[in-house]
């Protein structure tokens, strides 16, 4: 089992390195950093000098090593557009995105999992059909359309909730949170729902499929033959067994949440990392693009690692070896 953990960690490091390499290639090959930084007035001689100073004439590998080293120490370079340290720009925006993502994920789980279990246990009920129909539409409507519709309904027509911005925020150390004010929550609601809907439908369908598969298994049939009470059968046996493969998907879902946050932040003008990334694309601000890549990959890899470890903790087949 220790071997398994070590193997996974090595894999994670590999993935991070690959992503870092991609980001670094971006820096090197897309556009010229010098011209971006200095503008037209600087003489060619001065540009050459700058190039030499910044070590841009060094061999590829040593530059890459320096790049990675810098990253590990928290130095992410400077934005072409704003001339600010990228690290500052990103850390400023991280709380907004993270809070949005986590709340959206919680919403999707709180609604998706029970819905999935219910529709699996009662395949022919009228509620099941309704839920299935709704989720079908939910999967087909793009996130931004959902956002627009919610804005239109609750923001424009009914005027209940704000349609852009974060509302009131509270500073806790480095972290600017909007979870502690009422207006913060009001502003968070629509974006979180928008972001959560797609995840919700995916979760629900997955849980449903897994649960139906489990209900057909031999050990459920045997438990029925033994007269185990139906309630226990549904929850202790079926649902618990269903959760195991579902957990692994949660990890992927987190990646999806972070990704779709780009769209949601755009629709609601939510000041998070996603919006920052969009702007950097528009202005071809390579440093920000590259760093965003690395940060996203990092979150993703971290979550998946945790999920894998959880998996090992829960499933005895991965933990214990045979007795004889």
């Amino acid at each position: 089992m220790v071997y398994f953990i070590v193997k996974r960690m090595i894999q994670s490091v590999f993935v991070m390195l690959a992503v870092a390499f991609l980001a670094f290639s971006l820096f090197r090959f897309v556009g010229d950093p010098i011209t971006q930084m200095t503008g037209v007035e600087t003489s060619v001689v001065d540009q050459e000098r700058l190039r030499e100073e910044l070590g841009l004439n060094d061999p590829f590998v040593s530059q890459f090593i320096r790049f990675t080293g810098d990253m590990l120490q928290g130095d992410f370079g400077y934005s072409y557009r704003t001339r600010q340290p990228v690290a500052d720009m990103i850390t400023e925006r991280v709380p907004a995105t993270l809070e949005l993502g986590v709340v959206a994920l919680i919403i999707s789980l709180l609604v998706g999992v029970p819905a999935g279990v219910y529709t699996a246990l009662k395949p022919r009920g009228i509620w099941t059909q309704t839920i299935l129909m709704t989720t079908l539409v939910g999967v087909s409507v793009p996130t931004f359309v959902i956002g627009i519709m919610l804005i239109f309904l609750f923001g424009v027509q009914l005027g209940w909730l704000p349609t852009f911005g974060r509302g009131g925020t509270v500073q806790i150390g480095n972290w600017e949170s909007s979870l502690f004010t009422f207006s913060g929550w009001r502003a968070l609601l629509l974006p979180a729902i928008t972001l959560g809907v797609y995840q919700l439908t995916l979760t629900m369908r997955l849980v449903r499929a897994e649960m139906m598969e489990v209900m057909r298994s031999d050990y459920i049939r045997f438990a029925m033959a033994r007269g185990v009470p139906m309630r226990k059968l549904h929850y202790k046996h079926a649902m618990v067994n269903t959760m195991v493969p579902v957990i692994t998907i949660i990890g992927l879902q987190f990646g999806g949440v972070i990704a779709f946050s780009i769209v949601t932040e755009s629709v609601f003008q939510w000041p998070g990392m996603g919006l920052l990334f969009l702007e950097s694309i528009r202005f071809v601000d390579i440093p920000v693009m590259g760093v965003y890549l690395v940060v996203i990959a990092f979150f993703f890899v971290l979550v998946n690692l945790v999920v894998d470890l959880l998996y090992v903790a829960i499933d005895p087949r991965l933990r214990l070896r045979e007795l004889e």
Partner: protein
Amino acid sequence: MIAFLKKYEGLWLFVHSPSAIVAAMVATLIILGAIFASWIALVNPYDLASFSLFDGLLPPVWQDGANPKYLLGTDDQGRDMISAILYGARLSLIIGLSALTIAAVIGVGLGLAAGYYGGRFDAVVMRIADVQLALPAILTALLIDGIARGILPAAIQQDLRVAVLTLAIALSLWVNFARTARATTFVQMNKEYVQAAIMMGQRPSRVMFVHILPNILGPLLVIMTVDLASAILLEATLSFLGIGLPADSPSLGTLIRIGMQFMLSGEWWILWIPTLFLIALVVSINILGDFLRDIFNPRLR
């Protein structure tokens, strides 16, 4: 008689499933409309000369102030809404289908080979897939777009818009195909007909494409419909974000972006007509995808 019915069981199920029929009809209508857009549409939205600002902002036929020539109204540039959505759907479909094809060819090819050869090759392909998976689809698409913007000289950027978009979407979708192809190939590798073919001494390419591929088409077909929907949605999202197709050759996503400006000012049709159209297209594709999935998994019936 029973054997005959069983052979066309899929067809029987289709005929008896109202949602599948409706979905197929809707999808067909939209697709036909998109294909024949140039013949049906009043206006070519790309041809600046064919419409004028004076016709702009006209509401649909059932409201006051409408011009009966433009059944669903016009947008701010004076383009007929029907023409706009037909041409828009055409673009969305072209990009979606092309991206899907590229992704399928790459993904299935790699997945098949990974399943067949196993070992090192498989490990390498899986690692690449892992890295790709660490970056969600939108991210990959945005990145490719950003890179293209940075690398290509400004002059040809506009022309290559469609190609870049297609490539971006394709690269974010291939992993799905690869993983499914690989998993199903593994299953087939254990089957005795594959072992018989290998034993006989047949070329690996023959074993993969003549023997294994026909047997893994089922799940791949399902992925194709789901991913077609994803591709269309992805393109719409990118266009909405302003990174996809521009306003003078709009796809459905671009139209929605344009329409959002008019959400508060009362010209609701500029926003909601393209939106509904997009939803209808994707929902019907998804229904058909679900239907196909149910056919290939008889246990769920």
